[in-house]
């Protein structure tokens, strides 16, 4: 079944200059391999096309069942000179929750926010 990322992972963004790091964390260990296989650095960057202007590096953090996406050129030239209303990119991590991901049907009971899914 295809679901939005928000049902299998949570995320947090942090800022350093013009770089935003968006870390994505599996809600359950079973979801981590799906993230690794499907949420590649290229797909991540494509998902933020236009908003992230530089390189995206993906770090796998197996002990946390997480991946850290380091996104260069994501903060409008830097927090202080950015014209974006959210100049720190605090809400930037929320966009990736809308990434569509393929989940085996048998993992359905582990999905978060299942009340929002069609029966």
């Amino acid at each position: 079944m295809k679901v939005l990322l928000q049902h299998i992972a949570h995320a947090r963004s942090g800022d350093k200059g013009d770089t935003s790091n968006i870390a994505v964390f599996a809600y359950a260990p079973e979801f981590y391999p799906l993230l690794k296989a499907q949420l590649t650095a290229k797909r991540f960057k494509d998902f933020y096309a236009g908003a992230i202007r530089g390189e995206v590096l993906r770090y796998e953090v197996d002990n946390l069942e997480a991946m850290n996406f380091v996104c260069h050129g994501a903060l409008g030239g830097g927090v202080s000179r950015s014209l974006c209303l959210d100049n720190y990119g605090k809400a930037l991590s929320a966009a990736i929750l809308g990434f569509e991901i393929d989940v085996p049907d048998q993992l359905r009971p582990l999905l978060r926010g299942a009340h929002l899914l069609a029966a």
Partner: protein
Amino acid sequence: MTKTIRIGAGAAWWGDRVEPAQLNAERGELDYLCFETMAEATVSAAQVRARRDPTFEGYDTYLDDRMRAVLPACMRQGTKIVSNQGWINPDAAAKRIVHWLRELGHTGVKVASVNGSMITDRVLQLTDRILENGQPTSTLKPTLISAEAYLGAEPIVEALRAGAQIVVTGRVADPSIFMAPMMFEFGWDPLDHVRLGQGMGLGHLMECGAQVTGGYFSDPGFKDVPEPWNFAFPIVEVEADGSAVLTKVAGTGGAVTLQTVKEQMLYEVHDPANYLTPDVVVDFTQARLEQIGPDRVRVTQIGGKPRTPTLKVSIGCTEGFIGEDMFFYAGPGALRRAQLAKKILEERFRIVGLQAEEIRIDFLGLNAIHGAATPADAPEPYEIAVRVAARTATREEAIKVGREVDGMAVSGIGHTGKRVPHAERTREVIGVWSALVPREQVPASVHYFES
């Protein structure tokens, strides 16, 4: 019995709440209460303000509020305080703290100030390249406001060894504020990268306060925490080998869970195996987290590698001005009216000859936050704010943004909502750049005061 020390957070940024700091002071049974109050541009902004406002003391503008809230309990219980509220004038902050100690009747308390991070007058000689763009730092000479190196934990440890009960600093690395007490209490060597890695990793988990106890976290139906209006700041219980438990005062809102700790562990981290700090290079990729009870997460095996020979320097520069304002549409057709408004503004900026390095006109409610990454099929909202911003070389140009938004009131289109009177619509831009400096070039100095 093994010695355990309890370190609590008192602030994660300048504007943070004061009441959780007081709660930690009163009910956290703390050995140390640590405050982090500086952002990247804090020093530069303080320099600009100090030039214009001779009454500005140069330290955290909430110093009085914070110290009055926590000093009674800290003095009663023997809790020591480490804080970077000194900003550009740690001596003045220390003297002000002495003032409050005397007011409260506590005499003979030793307060230390940690100085030496400010290197504005030497930065162009000491540094070579700008890290962000590879240009020589000398290119920043015409716009330079201030420069400061990120000091490590050692001068704080020195002050604690000398008997200071309160240590107030200028710029030091945020996690170092929290690690210094561990180094002092357990006698960790500054070059013991194994223990310092764990300690600095813990400092990193503490430095953003409520972000590890349920703040910046809740998402209803997905990630819920109790009473998100009643957060506590974190407490870490540390043993001599650096093993630790993260927790918070019982009976407060929020939560300390594997999820809250994981999110904070990678916050503002780039390569998780090589998190650079003045004291040690931290490796989060072997860390072990274990939920050992309600709101109790055990943290072990954060790794460390030898520190680098350099310190990071933040260089603040004037970079012109930003002019910004917004106005509103609602009801059926809000988006089509907003789109025409955008077109009108673009034409008006051309007519009045706005000289801008960058102009941005967004529809708040649709695409102002995620910009180009907004899904093409995002639904049309019922209400939209047209938000316009431009970065310019002079304030005169920046003012044009607000003046053209003024024009939208009676010379715009139907159903335009507008704020009158409006808030300040121009602000100065302080750009922050980074460079590296050999650590031996930036010696710290510690001064002592007594109440």
